[in-house]
């Protein structure tokens, strides 16, 4: 495409050649072996147990919001693991490489990673954690919980929902492939400019980052559209605006951010794409290019993005804290108002990410003040949770422990954020480990919410609870590990250590580096207990009740556990913001419908999966500049979308009698009822 590419290019394979395979790098070869053994084992197991048809019918072609949610969460957890290993490698490099003259291992000048490889690791870490761990996890819980809390059968657009997921999945796979074919970007997750331009970064690394980011952003934008439409249009009768759960409210705020912010980064990346593929000059150092334009566009998305991830976490806390305090949420209207003010203010503070770039005192002053204002609604939320707990009957289950930890971390992260928001302070700590510690505290708030939610809603989805003992050990080890890893970073940052260093220049800081390393090792221990928790509970599989925790308050605790694929046999009529608690208080919580009606459900479709595969190949072809493959896949995507429009796609109807049979079966089932797996195939036969 671009005439002056560095290195070889052939019409057939583009820039791809054997030299792109990093077989001389022992770390990557080892990773490749592990990943391929795991992948082969999974594929082998699918064939060995004859599950290919099952996988295709029940998962790959599903449009069921719960299953898509589960797939999002699995994707998020796997990517979390990979991002974690990136983190381990960075910490270990800094521990080994103290001072420029320290010993080097495995051919590195100091430490064990050459700078070029180290740079790719921190870029991949940030990219993966934000787009392929946090975002899918948040989207996954949204998918599972929101239609249930609305009393809906599915999302407003089930097909689009599957498309969003498979786009995200394809983008994540591009990141994985970059490990073994070519390289990843070395220009940080924010894409420093003009470092990400062709002149400084002629390889395929930035292209991998750019297309993975771009494709996943598209998926996220679609998901936001779907979530907003679902919340606005799919509410059960009686579910007025002020009976929406706090989680639905915060998701609404979040997805308004998603809808409005993601297009901005789409533009930023597209302009970069024009620079890299067609030789335009948006962000180049010459020809009138302006790289501050990129930085502004990026952070106009970037700061709303942090709240895009944070607000769902707030919503999750607002569900979990009342349940385990056995008390209604304190200050519900202020909670809603706070979500929307955070979302709104989040739009007008972006330049606090580059106070030091010379905007001058007026702009810095404005952005400092605007940033500080976010603390007010955030504080409102924290106090509301505390007042919810105050005089409540608190049970210290693992979800509650996570929620309380999240609130403490929010305090630490928020206060350090306040320090950073004073531009004069920021001049001394910008781009230091202090900033890294600040946002990791914040991201750990999200992590806490996600772990809490995993344990809290697990029975609703799978029909059995997770083992509480291992969950609590996991909790304590993880929290101690986090403190050990991140508290020293505040101090290192104040001592002047900037971020993204491949060696630490001052040997006196070594003890602090050791502390973080001990924390990293403890993370491994916590990982062991996390896996143990899953294994123990999977083996035990004790059926859980519809209201699995006994004190559930919102609508989803009224339907069966696990939720059948049609969610509610008959759509519930809503009387209260906390419908489950409302019915329990009136002795109605076990009341079941007496008559059923036909249910209309969307049919499964393979189109989203096909679009995902095509967009993966499309991205790969663009990265390696295989022109003919780009053209073919573009055409194939257009044709697929058009053909889909000619598919009548009327869904299918489950007759009332069938529902009655399902309901009877669920009522008598003693083990985890598997009605969900019967779903499409069984329903189509009737």
């Amino acid at each position, binding site marked *: 495409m671009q005439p002056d590419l560095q290195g070889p290019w052939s019409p057939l394979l583009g820039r791809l050649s054997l030299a792109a395979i990093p077989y001389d790098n022992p770390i990557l070869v080892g990773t490749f072996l592990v990943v391929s053994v795991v992948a082969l084992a999974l594929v082998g197991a699918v064939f060995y147990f004859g599950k290919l048809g099952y996988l295709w019918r029940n998962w790959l072609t599903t449009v069921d919001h719960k299953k898509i949610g589960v797939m999002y969460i699995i994707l998020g957890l796997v990517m979390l693991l990979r991002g974690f290993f990136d983190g381990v490698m960075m910490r270990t490099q800094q521990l080994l490489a103290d001072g420029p003259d320290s010993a080097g291992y495995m051919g590195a000048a100091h430490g064990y990673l050459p700078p070029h490889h180290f740079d790719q690791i921190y870029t991949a870490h940030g990219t993966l954690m934000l787009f392929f761990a946090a975002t899918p996890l948040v989207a996954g819980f949204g998918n599972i919980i929101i239609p249930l809390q609305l009393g809906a059968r599915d999302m*407003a*657009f089930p097909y*689009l929902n599957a498309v969003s997921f498979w786009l995200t999945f394809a983008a994540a796979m591009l990141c994985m492939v970059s490990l073994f074919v070519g390289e990843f970007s070395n220009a940080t997750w924010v894409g420093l400019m003009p470092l990400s331009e062709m002149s400084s970064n002629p390889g395929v690394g930035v292209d991998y980052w750019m297309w993975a980011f771009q494709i996943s952003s598209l998926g996220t*934008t679609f998901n*936001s*559209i*779907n979530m*907003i*439409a679902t919340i*606005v*249009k*799919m509410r*059960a*009768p*009686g579910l007025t605006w002020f009976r929406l759960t706090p989680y639905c409210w915060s998701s609404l705020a979040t997805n308004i951010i998603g*809808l*409005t912010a*993601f*297009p*901005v980064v*789409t*533009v*930023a990346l597209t*302009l970069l794409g*024009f*620079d890299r593929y*067609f*030789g*335009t*000059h*948006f962000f*180049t150092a*010459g*020809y*009138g*290019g*302006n790289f501050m*334009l990129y930085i502004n*566009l990026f952070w106009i998305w970037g700061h709303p993005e942090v709240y895009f991830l944070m607000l769902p976490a707030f919503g999750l806390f607002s569900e979990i804290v009342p349940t385990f305090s056995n008390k209604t949420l304190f200050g519900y209207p202020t909670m809603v108002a706070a979500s929307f003010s955070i979302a709104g203010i989040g739009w007008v503070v972006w330049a606090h990410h580059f106070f030091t770039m010379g905007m001058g005192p007026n702009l810095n002053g404005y952005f400092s003040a605007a940033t500080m204002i976010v603390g007010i609604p955030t504080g409102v939320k924290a106090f509301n949770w505390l007042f919810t707990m105050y005089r409540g009957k608190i049970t210290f289950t693992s979800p509650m422990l996570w929620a309380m930890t999240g609130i403490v971390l929010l305090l630490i992260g928020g206060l350090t954020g306040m320090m950073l928001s004073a531009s004069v302070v920021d001049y001394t700590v910008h781009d230091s480990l202090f900033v890294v510690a600040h946002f990791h505290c914040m991201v750990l708030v999200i992590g806490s919410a996600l772990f809490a939610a995993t344990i809290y809603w697990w029975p609703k989805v799978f029909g059995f609870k997770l083992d509480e003992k291992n969950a609590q050990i996991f909790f304590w080890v993880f929290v101690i590990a986090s403190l050990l890893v991140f508290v020293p970073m505040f101090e290192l940052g104040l001592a002047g250590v900037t971020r993204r260093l491949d060696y630490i220049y001052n040997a006196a800081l070594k003890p602090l580096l050791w502390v973080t390393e001990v924390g990293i090792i403890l993370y491994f221990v916590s990982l062991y207990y996390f896996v143990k928790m899953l294994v123990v509970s999977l083996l035990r599989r004790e059926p859980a009740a519809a209201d699995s925790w006994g004190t559930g308050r919102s609508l989803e605790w009224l339907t069966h556990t696990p939720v059948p694929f049609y969610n509610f046999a*008959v*759509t*519930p*009529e809503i*009387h209260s913001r906390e419908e489950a608690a409302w*019915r329990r208080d009136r*002795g*109605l919580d076990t*009341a079941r*419908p*007496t*008559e*059923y*009606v036909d*249910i*209309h459900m969307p049919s499964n479709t393979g189109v989203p999966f096909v679009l995902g595969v095509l967009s993966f190949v499309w991205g790969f072809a663009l990265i390696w500049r295989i022109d003919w493959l780009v053209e073919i896949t573009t055409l194939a995507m257009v044709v697929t979308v*058009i053909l889909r*429009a*000619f598919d*009548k*796609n009327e869904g299918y109807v489950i007759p009332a009698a069938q529902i009655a049979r399902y309901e009877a079966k669920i009522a008598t089932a003693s083990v985890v009822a598997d009605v969900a797996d019967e779903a499409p195939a069984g329903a189509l036969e009737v």
Partner: protein
Amino acid sequence: MAHETMTADAAVRLWNAEADEHDPISARTYGFWLYLMSDGLIFASLIAAYAVLDNKMSAFGHPMADTLLSASQGFVQTLVLLGAVLALSLGTLGLKTGARGGLALGLAVSAALGTVFVAQGLAGLDAMAAAGNGPTASAYLSCLFVLLFTHGLHLAIGVLWSLVMLVQIFRFGFTQDVVGRLLNLRLYTQFQAAVWVVVYLYVYLFGGAH
């Protein structure tokens, strides 16, 4: 159908079997409107980028809108585009009367005018590039090209969409899916025209030669 359970005070309706019958077209149109909002943000960002690069330094010695673009030629393009919108909008009146022929005519005229608009735009960009003022000449020109190109691409997709609908109204008739798509197509075309008006105002009228 009522499912009533007695409590101490009154009969409470707990389940509502009629609730399943929602209005898919309204959800669909609303969802599409949301998509248009995100598209609006795309153009807002591009126009903001254009505003940032709209200066002598970013033009890097190359000409800018005042020598490259003519407001009167842009006006012709504007008329063509508004004609396309008008044709489509009048055509969709056929949805009320069930007039398939009128709708088909509207779709065809709007697709034809849309094609003319895209062709005019491409010809303009071609001429600029041929005169040495292509998108790689300066940051300003990069942005001018990408802004106009992105808008043209949207319209080209609209043309393709109209053609698909032309087939569908004869193949399927006015089914719920087809009507939903037609309403969205109309929204889409009107929205792209509104974006063009902003582009025309900002790029051609404020910056261009008169």
